[in-house]
């Protein structure tokens, strides 16, 4: 654990890119909050404001062939994975052109073509999936990382123990990314887990583990880069704890009775965006006009996203029962009765595209 500020990335594309990534997430989340209030987004909405350095630093280090699993607080991750703000916003609006046809909403952003396997709304529910994806990669000789983002709250669940053990036991290329924002809803880490050092937990399973200042995007970028590379080259699991803080309520329903305003204010002093911007400026690598341009681009992007989302159509009710089963048994039965075929010979129905990389 070392909190002295990490070295800035050498190349400007990365160094400035990280800032823009954070700005884009912030702007996306602010728009989401705005349109939640306007009633266009409903259900649960979990904002990532304050935690942008984590996704920004990490996502840039994940390659196209790596796989990604996240929680319900995943809008930023999806955006930086390459999903358009429009597809994300459209999903949050519940429209059929959203990345999950609008069926998932803010907690379930998916894009199989980007190997983005969704936001999962069961705490720790994606950990076993990521372990399994890594197993598939191992079996198929793919030298890629299966990256799983999860909150420190997930580390209380039995699934975290089982998943760490299995990944370590079978030498699976899982990249565990623990977003420790100190709270699980209203429950402070120290009120729910005896062992609050997440990296220690992982180390007990012989998993190389590191704890990083998650408010420092350069530090995250550096640490996750090393860890991801290590996963790919060794085929073994690695664990990174990213110490961060959410500035907003857990979800839009949360009255925040469980923490002091002062604590939030203190953390806001460490807002990852201005902090990093200042460092870039101090290093003479950023001028205000560049930031201004970034901000304008982000504004435009998110406004366009909202317009697109708002204009997009709803999924027709008749389509509701599509995609429960891949094979359509009724249709198939009909076919067979008319053609004397066997069930297992029949074409598979309505999968759009080569879903699971089965063909890769």
């Amino acid at each position, binding site marked *: 654990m070392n909190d002295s500020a990490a070295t800035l990335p050498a190349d400007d594309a990365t160094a400035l890119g990280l800032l823009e990534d954070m700005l884009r997430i912030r702007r996306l989340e602010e728009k989401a909050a705005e349109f939640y209030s306007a009633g266009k987004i*409903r*259900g*649960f909405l979990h904002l990532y404001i304050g935690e942008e350095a984590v996704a920004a630093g990490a996502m840039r280090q994940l390659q196209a062939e790596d796989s990604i699993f996240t929680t319900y607080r995943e809008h930023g991750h999806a955006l930086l994975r390459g999903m358009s703000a429009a597809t994300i916003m459209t999903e949050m609006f*519940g*429209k059929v052109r959203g990345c999950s046809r*609008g*069926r*998932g*909403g803010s*907690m*379930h952003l998916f894009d199989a073509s980007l190997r983005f396997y969704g936001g*999962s*709304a*069961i*705490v*720790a*529910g994606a950990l076993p999936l990521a372990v399994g994806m890594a197993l598939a990669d191992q079996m198929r000789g793919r030298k890629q990382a299966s990256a799983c983002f999860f909150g420190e*709250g*997930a580390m*209380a*669940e*039995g699934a975290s123990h089982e998943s760490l053990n299995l990944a370590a036991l079978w030498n699976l290329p899982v990249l565990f990314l623990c977003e420790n924002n100190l709270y*699980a*809803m*209203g*429950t402070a880490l120290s*009120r*729910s*887990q005896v062992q609050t050092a997440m990296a220690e937990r992982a180390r007990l399973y012989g998993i190389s583990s590191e704890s990083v200042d998650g408010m420092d995007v350069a530090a995250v970028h550096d640490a996750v880069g090393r860890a991801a590379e290590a996963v790919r080259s060794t085929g073994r699991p690695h664990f990174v704890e990213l110490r961060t803080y959410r500035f907003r309520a857990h979800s839009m*329903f*949360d*009255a925040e*009775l*469980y923490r002091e305003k002062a604590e939030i204010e203190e953390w806001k002093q460490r807002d990852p965006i201005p902090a990093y911007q200042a460092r870039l400026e101090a290093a003479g690598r950023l001028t205000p006009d560049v930031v201004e341009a970034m901000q304008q681009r982000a504004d435009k992007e998110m406004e366009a996203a909202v317009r697109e989302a708002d204009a997009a159509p*709803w*999924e027709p*009710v008749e389509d*509701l*029962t599509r995609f*429960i089963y891949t094979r359509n048994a009724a249709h198939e039965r009909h076919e067979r009765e008319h053609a004397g075929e066997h069930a297992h010979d029949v074409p598979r129905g309505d999968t759009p595209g080569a879903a699971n990389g089965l063909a890769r």
Partner: protein
Amino acid sequence: MTYREAIRRALRTALHDDRVFLMGEDVGMYGGSYAVSKGLLDEFGPAKIRDTPLSELTFVGAGIGAALGGVRPIVEIMTVNFSLLALDQIVNNAATLRHMCGGQLSVPVVIRLATGAGKQVAAQHSHSFEGWYAHIPGLRILAPATVEDAGGMLLAALDDPDPVLIFEHVMLYNAEGDGPETPQPVDIDHAEVRRAGRDVTIITYGGTLGKAMTAAAELSADGIEAEVIDLRTLRPLDDETFLASVRRTHRAVIVDEGWKSGSISAEITARIVEQAFYELDAPVERVCSLETPIPYPRHLEQAVLPQVPAIVDAARRTMQADV
């Protein structure tokens, strides 16, 4: 008074008993994810209002163990969706221990769970499993549909020496209704006739009672008088009440938010057929949820759920049937 307030009052009454305590995720400092237990931590302190870690399997099991140890835990599982993680403890311990040890022990644990869809929280957060749980012998399954039952069932459950699961429908927490000033335990063995009628029996519970009542009002405008039965207790099922009604009306419609196949509506149909077959003037009708994971957008979510027009149509069909 709201359904939520009624539960909170009942909690408060119950917590004055030394043996009673509440535990679950975020029941304390957060105030409960549906704000049911708001204020109780200040009132009763952290020994009685216990925030648990995210460990459903273990804190539910610990509730069972504590019940064996002579206290009376009220375990809140934030929503039924997360209860699947704890199901082993509920089925293999809570429901089973008493019989398996030859009657030496009983397991007086009360488990409260928020259930149901309607809040646009999508497929992993919108299950209605109360009817599914009703398959398990050894459990008592309650589904309060009214403000009175919301509080009263909790107190009655605490008086019960066996494991009781109370499913509180998320769409009811803000519902207003009459409740006693001083919370009182209510009967938890019987169904209740919520509306008398001679023509057709509508059988339902929990979150869909309101829809059934609305449907009955609409039908009444057309001269069809529906009797509406609120099952209240899904296990052990009080079949006498609905059988008596069906024997009078000769027609039955079951309304249930569970997915149709294998929902409790199937069990009720079977019992009617087994015990009142010759009294039926029409096939039993079921109005249930469409068999798909619950989608996020409102129009789709509502399309999945049982709705008033479907209930009205089903009731009408039974009236047109011809034996």
